[in-house]
């Protein structure tokens, strides 16, 4: 599954997605009707994401990354094609709370304390007070914000807010995490720290992750596979498998990811992967020589 897939030549869709498949997107089109006319946001998208796999979506602005993620989350419906999430329809998956989600903006409710924000999904699904409290504590510990439980969002820095949002998205131990540029609004240094945290957390929880980003190094650092998209209409141009960290094997599981550390950022193979994604993105080899650096 970590073998490079080319969107132009999709593998035939199996009748039913195996439970090991977290997300199956088959032949998905999405067209928006606007005042200015029709906007083809996505066209012929085929993508399969294994359970526990970390997949990044990268591509120029407007290529449909967010749209694809929203379709998976059942926040919108495809114009054509089918999507299954753990073998269910997206709607069913949403109702079953199969996924957690985080956006570019943390989207915390400003009138709730940090703890109450993390507790929100649990509260909505009727988790009793005591286990809820315990869970929230555990989550805040995980994101390193145990001391800030009673603060309000406006008293936190952007990075801390984003960590709260991630804790919230993990509250119900989803098997799938959807993240739309969750670190886009953070400054560089905070961002780097958050990436390491996310690697750790996703390893701990073993969830599959669909991660939208603009940053090549970020995608490379985090992912098992990077899906490179092209705009208007949004298509998958290439899927670049990452061969980083401990495991080089076809099994892209959480254990492999756990081995991913900050040191990796200075690994030779890291630069190579960055170059590979960069080239996929620009549609052609950028230049020859000792490269592999995304200067941004």
């Amino acid at each position, binding site marked *: 599954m970590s073998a490079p897939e080319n969107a132009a030549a999709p593998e035939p869709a199996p009748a039913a997605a195996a439970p090991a498949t977290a997300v199956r997107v088959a032949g998905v089109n999405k067209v928006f*009707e*606007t*005042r200015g006319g029709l906007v083809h946001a996505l066209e012929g998208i085929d993508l399969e994401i294994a359970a526990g796999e970390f997949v990044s979506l990268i591509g120029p602005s407007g290529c449909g990354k967010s749209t694809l993620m929203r379709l998976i989350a059942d926040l919108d419906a495809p114009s054509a094609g089918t999507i299954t999430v753990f073998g269910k329809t997206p709607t069913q998956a949403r109702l079953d709370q199969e996924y957690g989600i985080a956006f*570019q*903006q943390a989207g915390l409710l400003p009138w709730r304390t940090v703890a109450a924000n993390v507790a929100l999904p649990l509260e909505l699904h009727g988790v009793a007070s005591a286990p809820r409290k315990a869970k929230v504590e555990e989550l805040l510990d995980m994101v390193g914000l145990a001391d800030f439980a009673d603060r309000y969002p406006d008293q936190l820095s952007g990075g801390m807010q984003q960590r709260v949002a991630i804790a919230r998205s993990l509250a119900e131990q989803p098997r799938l995490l959807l993240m739309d540029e969750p670190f886009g*609004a953070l400054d560089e240094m905070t961002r780097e720290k958050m990436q390491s945290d996310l690697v750790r957390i996703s390893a701990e929880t073993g969830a599959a992750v669909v991660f939208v980003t603009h940053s090549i190094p970020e995608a490379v650092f985090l992912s098992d596979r990077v899906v490179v998209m092209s705009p208007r209409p949004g298509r998958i141009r290439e899927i670049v498998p990452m061969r980083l960290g401990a495991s080089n094997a076809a099994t892209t599981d959480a254990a492999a990811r756990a081995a991913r550390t900050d040191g990796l950022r200075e690994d030779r193979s890291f630069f190579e992967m960055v170059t590979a994604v960069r080239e996929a993105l620009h549609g052609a080899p950028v230049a020859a020589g000792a490269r592999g650096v995304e200067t941004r």
Partner: protein
Amino acid sequence: MSAHLTPRAETTLRIVAPLAVGAFVLGVWQFLVSVVGISDYLLPSPASILEEIVASWDSIVSATLITGTNALIGLVVGTLLGITLAALAARWRAVDQMSAPVIASLAVVPIVALAPVLNSMFGADSQFGRQAIAAIASFVPIFINTLRGFRQTTPVHRELMRAYAATPGQVLRTLTLPTARPFILTGIRIASSLAVISALVAEYFGGPRGGLGSLISTSAASSAYARAWAYVVASIALGLLFYLVTLGLERLVLRTRTIQPDRTTGTGTTSTSTRSTTSTTVSH
């Protein structure tokens, strides 16, 4: 949630829906009066009101002109005063704080309380008292909105002007006023129908006759309710006219842009909430 509508369908529904509601209400009203037989005496039927509108057309037009003129003058004066004082209050905090209790009082004082006093002060033989009341009534929302508008200039813009060593006059002209413009217009729109209703209500409390207010009261006093309602319809139409004109003005000016939210960071400032309908203080 709600099904997705094409933009065209949405535009159509936005027009059709209120018309349908209006037609429904009028229909029920007419039905109650003419079929169910609720007394036509206090609540005339839409049809008989329409008849009266036709019958008293000339007098309705001249009454509407009188009240409309008073409201317009009041609105213009209130606008000028409101903007000027808001500019002073925005510039000097002391002015702001000193005017605060007075403005707060003006915002809660009923017109019925002021009308007789103003008539005494300015004379019952002129329309001035009504115009003054319309001016006071429109002054309040315009002042408040304008002041808020004047405070919307973003730090980036203010620092830019400072970096350009712009004079206070230049800052006002090129930054503060354009920034406040949508707010001022919102204020004027809110004030518009207020001005009409205030000018009209003021007629109940003395002054030359002939306006809509005095004709409504005279007609009602002699139980000519259909005629009274005909004047009421005219006054609603007048209020609506003021509202729509100022709304149009607002839309026109807003066509040339205002500050947009910054898509990339999500931290941009939206300039105003002007697009949607906003409220009115109504004082009688």
